[in-house]
Every structure is written in C-alpha cells, then in structure tokens.
C-alpha cells in the first residue's frame, strides 16, 4: 500500500547546480557519475532540516535525503512549539542561526509565554503553530538554502571503508546505498530517521509497520545498524485523535486567549507575523468518570497500553492516566491545528483504543458530545540507538563520520530534535574540514545538558528537556542565549550569519555599556524617591545611590529610570529587548544565589 515513490528523483537542486556535476544526476540521466557530497542528511524531520541547513551554513555541500519532499517540516504530533525548557532550546537553536524559531514566528496562531509569574530564568516561550504554514515556510527555507540539495529516496545501507587511524572507531562511513541500489558518497553522514527505524503503529489490537501514519518505516537501515553492533532499544509514544472543528460546541467551554503583545521566538524578530487579535483561542475541557469506565472496560482491546516498552511518563496516554491516577478529572486542551484547518487537536487525549471506541469515549466529554473523529489516535513503537554510543559532537564511537540526531537517540519533541540537528550538522561539517568539534557544555546551554545527559547517562524513556535537568538554570536563560552561543557559533562553527553575529555583538556591548552608565549615575536616596515616587526606595541611607541599585527594585524598570533621568538613559529604552535584558541582569536575588552557586561548584 505504501512505497517508493520518487525514489532517486532530484526534487530540488540548489544554487550549487552550476558549480557541481551533481545537477546532472537526474533520474533520466542514462549513466550518472556517482555523486559526491560533503554531508548527507537522512531524514527531513525537525532534526534533519536543522542538520542539513546547519551543515550548508557551515559551507558544506549537503544532500538531504527524505522519503517524501512534501513531508519536510511535518509536525507529526502536537500543533505547538516551545514551552518550559523546550522554549529555551528553541532560543539556543535560534542563537546558532537554526530555522525552527524563525519559522514559528511566521507560522504561529496563538503565542503565549508560560511561567511569567516566576523568574525570567524559567519563562517558557510557546505557540500554537499552523501545521500547513509551518510546513510551507520550512520547505521554502530548506529548498532555498544555498549549498543544500534535496532528494527523495529511502536509504537501505551505509557504505563503509577503512577507519582513519588518528580517530577511534572500527570503520568509517563514506556514503549511502539507496533502495534502488544507487549510491551516493559523502564525507559525513547524519542519520535523523526519527521513529522510522522498525516503526510500528498500534491502534487497538491492530499493528502495522509505519514510521508515521501513512509513511513506510526503515527496516533495512535498522538491520544495517544492528549488524554494525549498535545497541538498539525500543520506545513507544502516542498521539491523540483529531476532531472535526465544527462538531465541537465551544460555547460552553473555557476560552483562553493569547498574549498581547506576542513575544517572538527568534532574536532576529521584533514581532511575529500575526496580530494578537487575529490569533486563535484554545479551549479547556475535562474528562469524567464515563471516560474512565470506557478505558477500564476495554483494556483487553488495547495492546499498546499493556506492553512493557517504556513510554514517556510526562506525556501519558489517557489510558495510563486513568490507570495510575484513578477517580480524577483530567484536563483536555482543544488546540487549533491552523488558520484554515478543520481539525482540533485534543491535547491530553493521546490514546490507542480501537478507532470506534475512541469516538465513543470522546463524545462523553463536555463540549465534545457531537464530536466527529477524523483521524484516530494511535501509538508508535520504534527502535532507538543507545545514545551512549555517540560522542558530545553526536558522532558515533563505532563508525567514524556517522552522526545521529533526533528521536533516533531516544529523545522526544520537535525542539529536542532540532537542537541535536543543529549540533550534528555543524559537527558533520567541521569533521569534513578537519576542524575540532563544536561542543556545547552543560554550563553553556540547554543543548549541552541535553547532549551530555544522553551521551553519558543514556535514557530508558523518551528524553524530554526540563528546566529541572539544568544545573545552571539561573544563568542559562532564554533572554541571553545569543550571548552564550551566537558568538561561539560564528567563530568556532561558522554556522551564524554575519548579520546575526553583528546584532549579538551590538547587544552584548550595549548591555555592558548600559550597566556601566547605570553605575555612573548617582543621586541621594531622597532625590531618587522624588524622581520615582512609585518605588519603595528607603531614604534612610545617607550615601548616594546608583541608578543600577535603583533598578534592582521590583517596581522599577528601565522605562521609569529613563523617565527620571532621560539623559543618558533614554537611548536604552529604544530597544525593548535591551531594556528588558538590563532589568533581568540586575535582579538582586539572582546575584546572591549565583554567588552561592559558584561557591558550591568551586568546592567540588
């Protein structure tokens, strides 16, 4: 029922057409010369697109191999990006000039920053994304990336050669064999095959092989990897059914509106593509005892739930929620799938019941009494490779120049995949030019924590980013990802555009200058009290008070300071981001705790 359409068809050759002989290698060419690239990326999901574009940004001639070009940039599960921890990863991907944050700023339909009442270190940028727009915008970006070629095709095997003696590893990858038997050679190969390695879809008692609903799994590749000696594990995940929008009675449900103004994901954007008033709302409803009853009565029809394969504890199916926390009402968020989409994504209702029972259960829920299920929820079981088999640069220990990124390493989530993709793309490219690897440490970013956890501890459930995993959470904030990574990305990896680099440099020097100017302004405390009456400035101190210390008061921000002392502070309020970052940098408690932390870590 599925299969190899367009295998070997060149879908989009890029700007490199004129420079390289590859462009001649279309399927109608009678005797093609074996094509040769710097980097091949297998898979066009969130890891693959970031990996391919990052490698190309680093100057490598790159080939992206995917089953279907029209699924590049597909959001196969939830119609949202970001969140707490995940939003941090997106800011870091953006700081390295990755795609997903910029694409989200062009494709969102409901932008909201989470955790706003908590400290700035744990703010979570999040948005509901229009699936169609995201895919369109992503494909436009990928297909127009210089040095990047995209080809449809399924990879069956790897081409291996003698290892380079100066590196560890038993052999070296030098290309791939496609299902049609053709070969493509490359200096580095990145595997981003997601859930496609022996992927298996489960609905009720039915199972059938598939990487994603409607897409064939990769079985040959999985066998190749196992034969090479990679340790393989199995994980499962699931996705909820999709419901017809017009069949839902929203009028009786709790409505949630987006932020006004919308905060963009990318450092390069001042605002998002859509006005807050044009954005779509989300709705909240709850399960009830009838839902529990249907789940419990039909456990015998539900093989996915009974199996022992580890699924994510933080993203349980409704079945596991009912089993583990009985007699409760569970939340169900009704999220829009897009501006002109007829579908609603019921977040919280991931399930693998037989399809007819899914609709029966859903119609028990308030607001969904007449709901029509358009696509049933299903479970996916898939192979992953023990990530302790890769280095911090995401190259495998076993096979030189072979890189893994994304769900293949046991992670879950678009953002986790994108983060690994950028790092794999950069390192695959650096490896070709024989430069030292680009490794982000745990002290530098969430990306570093993610990769360090995976490569040293492995994982037994799909790994998701949480801020609680991050030791240096107070320093690794979403607001300062550019100062942590953009400068390094430009200098050490070469993956950052000149424009972004200059912007990050400007921001860094402006922050430093702003802080020294704030230090230089001194008045008596009573004068400050007069200038900013709304601040609870204590007038008992006789020593002069610096503007920097006034900024530490909760009620004071750069705007109120600039109103009090327009010269020279006015210019620091012109850039909203600069003004906010100055305030965050000077939060007083932050400083004290940071001192405590540095003392702790220096005495290890």
């Amino acid at each position: 029922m599925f299969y190899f359409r367009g295998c070997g068809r060149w879908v989009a050759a890029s700007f490199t057409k004129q420079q390289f002989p590859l462009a001649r290698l279309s399927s109608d060419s009678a005797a093609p010369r074996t094509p040769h690239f710097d980097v091949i990326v297998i898979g066009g999901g969130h890891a693959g697109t970031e990996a391919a574009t990052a490698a190309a940004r680093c100057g490598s001639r790159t080939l992206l191999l995917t089953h279907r070009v029209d699924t590049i940039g597909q959001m196969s599960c939830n119609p949202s990006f970001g969140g707490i921890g995940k939003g941090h990863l997106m800011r870091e991907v953006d700081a390295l000039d990755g795609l997903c944050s910029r694409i989200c700023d062009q494709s969102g339909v409901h932008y909201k920053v989470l955790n706003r009442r908590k400290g700035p270190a744990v703010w979570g940028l999040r948005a509901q994304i229009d699936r169609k727009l995201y895919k369109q915008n992503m494909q436009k970006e990928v297909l127009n990336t210089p040095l990047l070629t995209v080809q449809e095709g399924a990879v069956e095997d790897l081409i291996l050669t003698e290892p380079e003696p100066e590196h560890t590893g038993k052999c070296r990858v030098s290309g791939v064999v496609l299902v049609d038997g053709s070969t493509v050679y490359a200096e580095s190969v990145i595997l981003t095959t997601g859930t496609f390695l022996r992927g298996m879809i489960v609905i009720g008692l039915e199972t059938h092989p598939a990487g994603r609903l409607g897409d064939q799994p990769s079985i040959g590749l999985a066998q190749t990897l196992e034969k090479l000696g990679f340790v393989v594990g199995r994980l499962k995940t699931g996705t909820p059914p999709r419901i017809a929008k017009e069949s839902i009675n929203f009028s009786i449900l709790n409505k949630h509106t987006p932020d006004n103004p919308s905060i963009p994901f990318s450092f390069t954007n001042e605002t998002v593509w859509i006005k807050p008033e044009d954005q779509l709302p989300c709705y909240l409803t709850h399960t009830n005892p009838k839902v529990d009853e249907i789940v419990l009565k039909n456990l015998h029809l539900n093989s996915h739930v009974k199996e022992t394969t580890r699924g994510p504890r933080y993203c349980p199916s409704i079945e596991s929620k009912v089993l583990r926390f009985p007699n409760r009402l569970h939340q169900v968020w009704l999220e829009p799938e897009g501006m002109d989409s007829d579908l609603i994504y019921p977040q919280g209702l991931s399930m693998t019941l037989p399809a007819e029972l899914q609709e029966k259960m859903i119609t028990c829920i308030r607001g969904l009494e007449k709901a029509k299920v358009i696509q049933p929820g299903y479970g996916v079981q898939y192979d992953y490779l023990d990530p302790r088999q890769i280095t911090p640069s995401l190259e495998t220990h076993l096979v030189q120049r072979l890189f893994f990124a994304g769900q293949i390493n046991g992670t879950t989530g678009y953002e986790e995949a994108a983060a690994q993709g950028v790092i794999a793309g950069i390192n695959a490219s650096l490896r070709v030019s024989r430069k030292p690897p680009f490794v982000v440490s745990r002290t530098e970013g969430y990306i570093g924590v993610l990769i360090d956890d995976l490569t040293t501890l492995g994982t037994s459930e799909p790994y998701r980013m949480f801020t609680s995993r991050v030791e240096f959470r107070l320093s690794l904030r979403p607001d300062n990802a550019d100062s942590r990574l953009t400068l390094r990305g430009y200098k050490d990896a070469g993956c950052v555009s000149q424009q972004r680099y200059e912007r990050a440099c400007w921001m860094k020097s402006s922050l430093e200058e702003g802080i020294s100017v704030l230090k230089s302004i001194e008045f008596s405390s009573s004068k400050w009290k007069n200038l900013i009456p709304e601040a609870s400035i204590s007038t008992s101190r006789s020593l002069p008070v610096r503007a920097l210390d006034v900024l530490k008061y909760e009620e004071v921000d750069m705007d109120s300071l600039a109103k009090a002392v327009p010269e020279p502070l006015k210019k620091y309020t012109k850039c909203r981001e600069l003004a906010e970052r100055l305030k965050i940098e000077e939060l007083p408690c932050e400083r004290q705790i940071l001192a405590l932390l540095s003392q702790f870590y220096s005495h290890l």
Partner: protein
Amino acid sequence: MWRGLWTLAAQAARGPRRLCTRRSSGAPAPGSGATIFALSSGQGRCGIAVIRTSGPASGHALRILTAPRDLPPARHASLRLLSDPRSGEPLDRALVLWFPGPQSFTGEDCVEFHVHGGPAVVSGVLQALGSVPGLRPAEAGEFTRRAFANGKLNLTEVEGLADLIHAETEAQRRQALRQLDGELGHLCRGWAETLTKALAHVEAYIDFGEDDNLEEGVLEQGGSTGWWGRKTPRISSQRLPSLSLSACLLSPTADIEVRALEVALGAHLRDARRGQRLRSGAHVVVTGPPNAGKSSLVNLLSRKPVSIVSPEPGTTRDVLETPVDLAGFPVLLSDTAGLREGVGPVEQEGVRRARERLEQADLILAMLDASDLASPSSCNFLATVVASVGAQSPSDSSQRLLLVLNKSDLLSPEGLGPGPDLPPHLLLSCLTGEGLDGFLEALRKELAAVCGDPSTDPPLLTRARHQHHLQGCLDALGHYKQSKDLALVAEALRVARGHLTRLTGGGGTEEILDIIFRDFCVGK
C-alpha cells in the same frame, strides 16, 4: 571483509557497563572489563597472605591456577594446590574462596587466595596471575572503587573503609566501623530525601505547572502528604497560574520541614570538631609555671623520654610534640615552656610559642607544684590561664582544662597547705606514680568529651569535607527562606540538596523526576 569489521565493531559496542563510562576523554576508563589482582594483606613476611582478584576473568584465573580442578563451591574455603600455569610448577597449597558476583565485595566475580606469607610464594602467585590473559595488577584503591561503582558501597562507606584500614587506635576503629555501616550516610540520606521531595514539588510547579496540565494543587497549603502536595482530586486551571506565589512561599508545612532540617543540621555541625579530633588526634597541651613537672608528665604519658627533665626552671624552651594513644584516643601531646615573665629572649620566645599552642589546645593539662601554690607564679597562672578557660561556656567546642597538682610526694601528711581557693583538681606525683590511676581516669573522661565516644554518641563527622558540605547546606537553606522568586527558591533547595548528596552520592535529576511523576499526574 565487512563481516570481520562488524564483529570487531560488535565487540566494541557490547556490554552496557562499558558504555556507561565517559568516552569523551579518549582513554579507556579504568576498570572497564579488566580483571584486577593484588596482594590485599600487608607487605613483608607474615603467616598468611591474602591475594584477591576481581573481574569477569576471576573464575578463569582460579581454574587455571588450580588445574585440573573445577571451581570450588561459592563462598566456601577449599584447600587447593596452586601451580604456575606456564611451567606447571607447584607454588603453594592454599585456601581459596570463590565469590561469584554480584554477591561479593566489589559486586564482580572475586577470588581470594590465602597463601603462605613468604615473599617467594606471594610473588610466585602474583606472577602466575599476571600471566593469565585479561588480568592486570590493581591500582591503589581500585577494589573499593569498583565496589563503589557497582553500588556496593556509598561514598561515606568508602571513606569509612579507608579510615578502617588506617585506624590506629581502638576508638578510631569503632568510629570507622560505624561509618562503614553507613550511619552517617543513612542520616544524610534522610535529610537529602526531605530536600529532594521538597525540591521535586517546587520543580514540578516550575516545569509542569503551566505547560503540562499539572493536575494537582501542587502548592496548596496543609497537604496531608507532606510538603505542598495534596492527594485529593482537584482541578486547577493551569496556564493561568491560579495559585499565588506567596501561597507557596509561606506554606507552613514547608517551613516546618525545612526548619526541622536546619535544627538537625545545626546540632550535627556542633559535633563536627569532635569527629575530626578523633580522626586526626586531640590536641592536649601541658602548661603551667616553670618547674611544675610538665615534662615529667609528658614523659610519663608517652612512656618515653620526650623531654629533658631537670630541677632547673625553664629547661623546656620549645614546644615538644609527641603522638600518643591515651585510653584508646589518639592524642597529640605538647610539652611547653613554663609561663613566666622577665626572662631572656630565647625563653621569652618559648613562652610566646607556649601561649600560642595553648590557644589551639582541645584539652589543657594545667600543672602546678602542689608544694608551691602560694608563689607569685602559681597565683598568677591560676588567675590568668586557669580562670580564663574556666570562664568559657562549657559547650563542646570550647577548650577543656584539667588542673593537676604535681609533687604530692612533697606535701606534708595534712595535705595542701594554706593557699588560694582552688578549682576542682587532681593530686599526682610523677615521681612516685601516686594518684596516676585517678588522673588517667579523669583524662579518659575529658578525652571522651573532647573526641566524642563513638560507641554511644550519634555518628560523628570525621572529615572536614562533611563539615563543609553540611555548613553549605545550612547556608543555602538560609537563602531559601529569603527568596521571593520560585526559581530562586528552587535554586537554594538545589544547592542545599547538592551539598548533602556530595556526602551520600546520588542526587541526580532522575530522582526528582521520579517523585514528580509518582506524585503528580503530569501530562499532555
């Protein structure tokens, strides 16, 4: 060709333990796969010497050395003839013990060879083991490190074991044994658990409160499950944080738990100096006016002529130190110059050093000539040194003082003549030994108070590291109370917990996530 490569590659990838080690360093991690052997008893001629192996090839090595015999029954002593696998030459008739993992000291397969202690036998067996493929000599501490790596010992137990091996006195041995039992570890683990639970609940609120439909009033007050958790079914409308920050920060349950922890920590920190004294020796300083008999007492206690003794005042000018075992306690005994003014520059320096040493003393043995109590130097000494130490509060950390009146043999039968009022004191004659038993008993009691008696007291903190981390934990809890921002509250708890888990091991994020997913229904 590729088949060969694949086999190699498969071998390299096999074995989860190997994968656990950080490969980024490039060098293979010590202890990965290799079987180690070492002489476990002391070096030199002895009756029996014990040679141990640990690792997967242990059974193979035992079989090769005792060929053609099979493996003896597990954990039973068996008599076997050991012979050199290369020459077949007999080495020794020895007791061998076979400990298949994981029920062994290191958790790996282990073998013990109890051989006769002659150097030729020992080196012969060691060489024979070295010739078995896959075996190599162990590095210092490697058996213990493997036991630690395999979860057989925790960090405090490892330290307790190291102390046991170095225990020189009886009290040190008892202390080390107690610590090896994991008593300190147990205590710290209890504290760490409290903090882990507290932290897990704060982290749950940060990571899942708004993102993942945390379906619980996480930070509600008065929860019956401790902390802020509450087990009754409730719905909180997330994404709009319905609970105010102050509700969480001022939660009485939280405050009670943390305060109880702070009190317990404080109590143990006051204990800390005692544990250190027990490990490294209590400082006992003998002081007094010139010619009171200080050096005689030092020689008597150390049972050797440490100091020159003469009837001439000011004989001892420098500080003389000697380590001694007094009633089972390790003691660093210092003899000092007699305290007096108006002497020559050399003796003046000696007096200055004596006073300096006095300040560092844990226990002061203040010595006076019983027959000379009315002299100005005696009165002056009583008024300054003895009175000032006596005036300190009698808490554990302050100095203790034992007043000893020497030369009781010179007293008239009526006892002490007229003189100043004396605080509690002991009479002693270093010359005749009269009163020595009473003095030693008093000394033992004082040392027990200074060092702590490990057989009855709560576990002591024998290492400066322990004190450092407990203090760090206490400091961090102080910040916890002040913080207004939930991320900062979490940070303070993290640091506090981090300090404790430096002592107990563990402390990863996984433990926090386990609690979160156990206690809350998190999920999309």
